[in-house]
């Protein structure tokens, strides 16, 4: 073995022995992250907490059923009290006895009749941005639900009137029959009287048919709106000249249209009001391999962060310890090359961090995670470890003591929690700030692991290519930094 290889091997063996000689450290390295994942999985609830809520009703609307409203608010709003004094309720909210306060509008009917919306006031003292967003969403959903229930009730009443309209249309069709008979018999006077009756009857029916507009709007939304409406028919009948030979055909078309309307009105009586209020539904088709628990979703991110932190800390402490011990002087006098020392440390720590990553990945597999293509998974982890080691070596050239090295490593971990996409999606960061994300190896790791473990598509080559390039750049910078520390005379 050449001298250079002996020196590299010397560093590999020394670093591995140093780590293995600390059994507590090894146990902490492997069991610690594993326990964190398990505890997170056991303790995390993927549903928002139920908010203790008080509903304040105006006294004049005491008849408004709080039970109905409570049902409309859903299970995330726990209605603990109904009252009629908003000020007292606000005091209870400020004292922390409540999470939410919902104040129903005063004189809602009058406000709506005046063409204005009536406001439900939702008050809270929450500062957590996630919980605030949850409250906003719940508020909107609850009010939408209340609106739907109100409209559904109106439709229910309208359906009761549709039956009468339906009977009226049946009578109008009888008139059209008689009108056709009169026209075919050449009785112009009788025909004109019947046309006038039909015109008047259609006008009356149009004014009563409140559901007509509703049907039209649904039709418009679907892009299948009908040409037929009572107002159109009334306009057509008003224009018919009974002396015109085509009048018979015109009346038959009107009759046909009335037949269509009759069918629609019959349907309107059979379709449930809640369907008419919310005629559309969203059917979600998930193409990703959705993890069965939130812990499994956060697992790859946690794995990437832990491995990055492990590698950064190992690398940062390794050289700092040598500087503190005074071994750098010995290195400087010896024939050791910086690239030899760096290669030895890279290999040793890649083996150690890789072993920890393998154990943690295995544990995730046991708990139901999938790793996708094992070769790509392994490549991702190795590249991420090498890049993280480069970052750690860079830290070690800046840090003067092991305390500083640990502090810098913790700082990198803190930055990683916010900027790698572990908690917040990268897309929510503005572009200039996102640059920070791509200075952190875990960002590439999380992107790649999410693709591998949750998506059907293959990992984008840009992610792994970018990570490899970044690892290479960090290695060169670390080599340069270490050269300043080890190889150059002070």
């Amino acid at each position, binding site marked *: 073995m*050449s001298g250079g290889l002996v020196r590299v091997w010397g560093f590999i063996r020394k670093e591995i022995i140093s780590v293995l000689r600390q059994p507590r450290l090894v146990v902490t390295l492997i069991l610690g992250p594993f326990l964190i994942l398990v505890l997170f999985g056991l303790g995390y609830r993927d549903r928002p907490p139920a908010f203790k809520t008080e509903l304040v009703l105006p006294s004049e609307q005491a008849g408004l059923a709080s039970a109905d409203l409570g049902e409309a608010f859903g299970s995330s709003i726990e209605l603990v009290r109904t009252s009629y004094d908003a000020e007292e309720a606000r005091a209870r909210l400020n004292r922390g006895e409540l999470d939410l306060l919902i104040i129903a509008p005063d004189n809602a009917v009058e406000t709506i009749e005046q063409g204005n919306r009536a406001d439900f006031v939702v008050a809270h003292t929450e500062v957590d941005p996630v919980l605030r967003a949850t409250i906003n969403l719940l508020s909107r959903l609850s009010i939408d639900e209340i609106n739907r229930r109100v409209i559904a009730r109106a439709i229910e009443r309208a359906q009761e009137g549709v039956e009468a309209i339906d009977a009226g249309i049946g009578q109008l069709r009888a008139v059209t029959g008689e009108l056709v008979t009169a026209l075919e018999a050449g009785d112009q006077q009788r025909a004109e009287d019947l046309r006038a009756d039909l015109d008047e009857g259609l006008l009356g029916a149009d004014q009563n048919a409140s559901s007509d507009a509703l049907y039209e709007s649904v039709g418009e939304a679907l892009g299948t709106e009908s040409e037929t409406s009572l107002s159109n028919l009334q306009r057509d009948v008003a224009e018919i000249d009974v002396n015109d030979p085509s009048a018979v055909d015109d009346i038959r078309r009107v009759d046909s249209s009335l037949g269509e309307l009759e069918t629609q009105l019959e349907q309107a009586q059979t379709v449930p009001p809640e369907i008419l209020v919310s005629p559309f539904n969203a059917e979600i088709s998930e193409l990703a391999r959705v993890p069965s628990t939130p812990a499994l979703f956060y697992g790859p991110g946690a794995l990437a962060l832990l491995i990055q932190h492990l590698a950064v800390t190992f690398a940062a402490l390794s050289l700092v310890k040598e500087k503190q011990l005074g071994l750098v*002087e010995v290195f*400087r006098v010896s*024939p050791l090359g910086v690239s030899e020392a760096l290669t030895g440390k890279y290999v040793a720590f890649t083996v150690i961090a890789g072993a920890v990553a393998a154990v943690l990945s295995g544990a995730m597999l046991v708990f139901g995670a999938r790793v996708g293509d094992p070769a790509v998974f392994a490549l991702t982890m190795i590249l991420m470890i090498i890049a993280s080691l480069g970052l750690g070596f860079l830290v070690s050239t800046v840090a003067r003591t092991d305390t500083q090295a640990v502090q810098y490593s913790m700082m990198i971990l803190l930055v990683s929690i916010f900027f790698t996409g572990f908690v917040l999606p990268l897309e929510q960061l503005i572009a200039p700030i996102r640059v920070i994300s791509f200075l952190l190896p875990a960002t590439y790791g999380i992107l790649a692991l999410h693709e591998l473990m949750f998506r059907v598509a293959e990992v984008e080559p840009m992610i792994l290519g970018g990570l490899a390039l970044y690892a290479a750049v960090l290695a060169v910078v670390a080599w340069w930094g270490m050269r300043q520390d080890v190889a150059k*005379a002070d």
Partner: protein
Amino acid sequence: MPESSVAVADDLTRSFGPDAGVFDLDLTLDRGVIVGLIGPSGSGKTTTVRLLTGILSPDSGTVRVLGEDPVHFSRETRARIGYMPQDVVLYPDLTLAENLKFAASLYGMSWRRRDELEQIVDFVELNGVMDRLPKEASGGEKRRVMLASTLVHQPELIFLDEPTAGLDPVLRRKLWDRFEDLADAGRSLLVTTQYVGEAAYCDLVAVIARGRILALATPDELRRMAFGGEVLDVVFVEQPSRAMAESLAALSAGKSLEWLDRRSVRIVVNDAGTAGPAIVKWAQDNHVELEQTEPYLPPFDDVFVEIVSDLSNGSDQTPGDRE
């Protein structure tokens, strides 16, 4: 640089402040000799070693070690040098044996070269303790492991920065025996120490204080430089008269007599070999009976104090200049 010299420093200066560093340092280290660099803490010993090993670069002056500028040592030249730093620098999580093997690997020595490793362990008398972690080893054992790490690749030029610091006298003596063995084998050693008495083991001693070399000579020469000559203790059978004793002073090298007790005086002479018979003749001529006349070897602590005190008294001359 003469062929016999392995290291030559000429007018070397590296300053860390007005009185910190080394200044105008001239030093030559020949093959097969032990040069002791002796001085108090902070006198510039370690800085000198660091300049000679390329750890520090000089502000001015030149230095050549094994024919190269230490700041730009080639890898081959580094392999010919052994360096033992002042502090104990061992990996706390490796055993003494593993530390030694790691040091060997730095010089390209495979861990499989057990014979050479065992030889060096024998040399520093560490058999049976090499499986201990540094925290389980004594200070002397750790020092000896470091010495073994320095010597494991059989360097021809060895820099040892206070290798005996904190060790008991017996162990210090053993280590100096080892250094003498190395010098006998043709190795060159530059050894720094705070123990002035260790100057006796060196072939050449450089006394350094406040970053400057005050004297550079063999141990015997250093004594002469410190006291202005050789020292004889003269013991009379009966207490001589003061006038009689003062007439004895005429035989000295210009220094006054020092009374040791009522019957004994200490006299500095140019050459003890010729001064002895002269004193016997003086006694016969003056009818004075002598009990004995013998050379006195002042301890190096006294030598060192003598030399350094001259500098403290503001003398521009080093003791050597007085000759």
